[in-house]
């Protein structure tokens, strides 16, 4: 997976017609992913895209890499088996909010705790796109959809809090409408050793348009988003004139012009799990009074050995200890007898 040939994003595109709706946020993510592949210089044959089912899960078809469009919710398991036997591959898992958090929630959680070294791109559009618009586990409560004509009742998951609870080692957030930042975070996602979770807010113009408007529209985004960077204070606003400080255990938005200076602010430390636990809880409805801004960027990047490294180490240790397996010895087992 070293840099070898100079490629552009287009080199990573397959010959298949893209079948997303016009205006779908998936296009932007596809483009940035292809471009990041080129930047890293990954060999196409050493990259595998694994997906479940959903609009987003069509993604592998559009990459001129290896790909497997599996079944709904099970991509983490497919990717685990692949990575366990082929640790050298660059494995990317594509999933949606329904695929990852509804039917696939358990595999997703177990993938995170096991920490296989692969990258998860979770396309969160807060809706089931492919089945034409039912609410998903990330849809806000009271959402009116085809299956909830008078509003959904289910308290939604906070995907990144869910991931932290499932022992994730890398947790990040980006959005389709900010391709530059998305690209940067895709790169970080690739670089992390372990299961890297990148949640991407993705607009579904057909069934859930405007879901992330507050974070993407010029008028609102400066106050409702905060882009965190390791070692830097948490600032936001049109001119970074606001910041977040910790009032005891509680994050608080403050005006830098007034009583607080930059040195009062929370300094982002992406290796600090406790702080990450607090960061992922900054999850206010951006339209609510006094809402804290929603953090984007790498919220957490911890270190833990990866599953496939440990698994292969056990195998090497066994071989070192007992020698390469010998079928005849295996068959004979511990006690035999002879007849004749």
């Amino acid at each position: 997976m070293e840099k070898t040939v100079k490629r552009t994003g287009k080199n990573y595109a397959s010959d298949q017609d893209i079948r997303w709706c016009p205006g779908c946020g998936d296009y932007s993510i596809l483009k940035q992913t292809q471009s990041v592949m080129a930047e890293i210089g990954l060999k196409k044959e050493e990259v595998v895209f694994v997906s479940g089912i959903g609009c987003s899960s069509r993604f592998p078809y559009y990459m001129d890499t290896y790909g497997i469009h599996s079944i709904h919710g099970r991509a983490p398991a497919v990717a685990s088996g692949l990575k366990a036997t082929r640790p050298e591959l660059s494995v990317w898992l594509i999933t949606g909010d329904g695929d990852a958090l509804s039917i696939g929630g358990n595999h997703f959680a177990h993938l995170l705790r096991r920490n296989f070294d692969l990258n998860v791109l979770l396309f969160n559009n807060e809706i089931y796109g492919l089945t034409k618009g039912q609410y998903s586990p990330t849809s806000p409560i009271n959402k009116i959809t085809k299956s909830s004509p008078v509003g959904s009742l289910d308290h939604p998951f906070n995907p990144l809090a869910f991931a932290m609870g499932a022992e994730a080692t890398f947790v990040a957030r980006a959005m389709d409408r900010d391709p530059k930042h998305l690209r940067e975070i895709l790169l970080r996602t690739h670089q992390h050793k372990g299961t890297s979770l990148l949640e991407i807010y993705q607009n579904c113009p057909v069934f859930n348009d405007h879901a992330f408007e507050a974070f993407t529209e010029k008028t609102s985004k400066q106050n409702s988003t905060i882009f965190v960077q390791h070692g830097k204070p948490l600032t936001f606003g049109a001119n970074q004139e606001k910041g977040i400080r910790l009032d005891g255990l509680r994050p608080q938005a403050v005006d830098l012009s007034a009583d607080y200076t930059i040195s009062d602010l929370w300094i982002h430390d992406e290796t600090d799990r406790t702080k990450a636990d607090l960061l992922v809880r900054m999850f206010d409805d951006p339209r609510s009074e006094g809402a804290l801004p929603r953090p984007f960027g790498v919220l957490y990047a911890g270190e833990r050995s990866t599953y496939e490294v440990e698994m292969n180490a056990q195998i090497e240790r066994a071989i070192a200890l007992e020698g390469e397996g010998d079928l005849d010895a295996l068959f004979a087992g511990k006690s035999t007898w002879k007849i004749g």
Partner: protein
Amino acid sequence: METKKPMTAKSTEEREEVTILFAGDSGDGIQLTGNQFTNTTALHGNDISTFPNFPAEIRAPQGTLAGVSGFQLHFGGVPIYTPGDSCDVLVVMNAAALKANLPKLKQRGTIIANRSGFDKKSLKLAGYPDDAAPLKAESLTSRYRLFEMDVTRMTRETLADSGMGTKERDRSKNMFVLGFIYWMYSRNLDFTIKFLEEKFARKPAIVAANVKVLKAGYHFGETSETFTTRYEVKAAPMPEGVYRNVMGNQATAMGLIAAAKKANLKLFYGSYPITPASDILHTLSKHKNFGVRTFQAEDEIAAVCSAIGASFGGALGATASSGPGIALKAEAIGLATILELPLLIVNVQRGGPSTGLPTKTEQADLFQAMYGRNGEAPLPVVAARSPYDAFEAVFEAARISIEHMIPVFFMSDGYIANGAEPWQFPKAADLPAIQTHFATPGARENPYLPYQRDERLVREWAIPGMENLQHRIGGLEKEDLTGNVSYDPENHEKMVRIREEKVERIAHFIPDLEIDNGPEEGDVLVLGWGSTYGAIKTAVVQLLEENKGVAHAHLRYLNPFPKNLEQVMRRYKTVLIPEMNRGQLLPILRGKYLIDAKGLNKVKGVPFTAAEIKAEVKRLIAS
């Protein structure tokens, strides 16, 4: 230790074959006792078949019927195919064990009873009425030969100055019984002594105690006046060669390792524990030096999906479970069907439906293997017939899966999984190589078409890392040749037919069905599959001795069927299909060939006896 042949006034009688049933509380070490006797007896050169039978609970309430653990063992100087319809000797450690197992004892059979297991409390726990004395009952003493011995007391006494507490001393009770039975069947103590030395290598005091009790039991046989006869069962006339004892789950694990090795593939085994399949996982996880990757997944769905992922990456992906777990895998098996990748799905069947009878055996998942998926999704199905046969059968299943790029069902069951028998294991070098069907990476004249096929309809396997062979596959219907997603009506029908035909063509790569035993044509063909083999074999051997026009054939391949199956069936007036289910192979064959085959069905969680099969054949001949 060398067991000196004691000079004794006791007589020794010869026996062709013997069935012993050890029974006691689950805490009594019955399984260990049975296994020790099995191994020693195997070393003695007998043919053997065993059947452990334990409760579903980890430790069911002590002393109760629910807590009874049994180990049945049939050995002989003649070929042995089943653990025995009924037993000659019943060893019972307590009253519950007697109550639960007496019906299995032959008329005039021998009961060896641990007296202290029949005290008031034990009788009550076993559910006997207050004033019962089952060992004294006319009905018992008149029909069976009873030997009582106070195992508990004698064990305690043997260890009187060991410095051990009563509870600890009592743990060696089973060794006393084992020693005694060794004496009774003129066996050697060496194997068990060596076993104890290895097992408790770090606890010499425990080794010493157990060996002491073992010998005490042996000497008790020699010295006690009650026992006047011991028995000798000569070595069986088995083919020359080296043997070991093997259980079905072990054989399955070894078959998988061997197949991967012979195909030069990594073996990846994704599984979620479930009775009675878990031991395959346990066994495989011990053989990491073969490069075996065992993955204890979060559930059965993840287990099979991880195996699919591994196969996509170029390994031999395998998964195992039992009925309910296989049900969970159905959707993913459908995916593997359309992906056309190697994948082995092992079903160690148990009693159903639902959670059913988790520790009991049954053959009621054949329908599920054949039909338990959405859409048209036929797959090859291969079944093992006995514990050691699981090796060869699973190897065959893996061969088909790899060589034909197709998921394959391998059917075992609780009886095969936990049963044991001698195995004349093969030399690794003699096993056939398995041909993989990899595509050629690098520069190519023609672009790689993932769904281009050879004359067997098998596609080429291109795996990540192979240059210029990048491709995408998935669960949507694919276009012929290219594998691109296609909703075209004609293409769909074509692909459905190709997948079907691909399974059918495997018939050209498997052996014809042979008559296992009996004439090539005649009155009755007993056609079996799976673990009914031993019972049918025994029955047909006996029927042939009685000059009945009956033959036995046994199906290893259940999909596709051997090419000559219909022919074979038509050579007999009647075809009888015994199954441990309500008839599953039966309607399939009837529907396919319109032959009025008859079923013999048993759904009791326990195997057929040979007698049951004999009786039905006789009934058919008479009618």
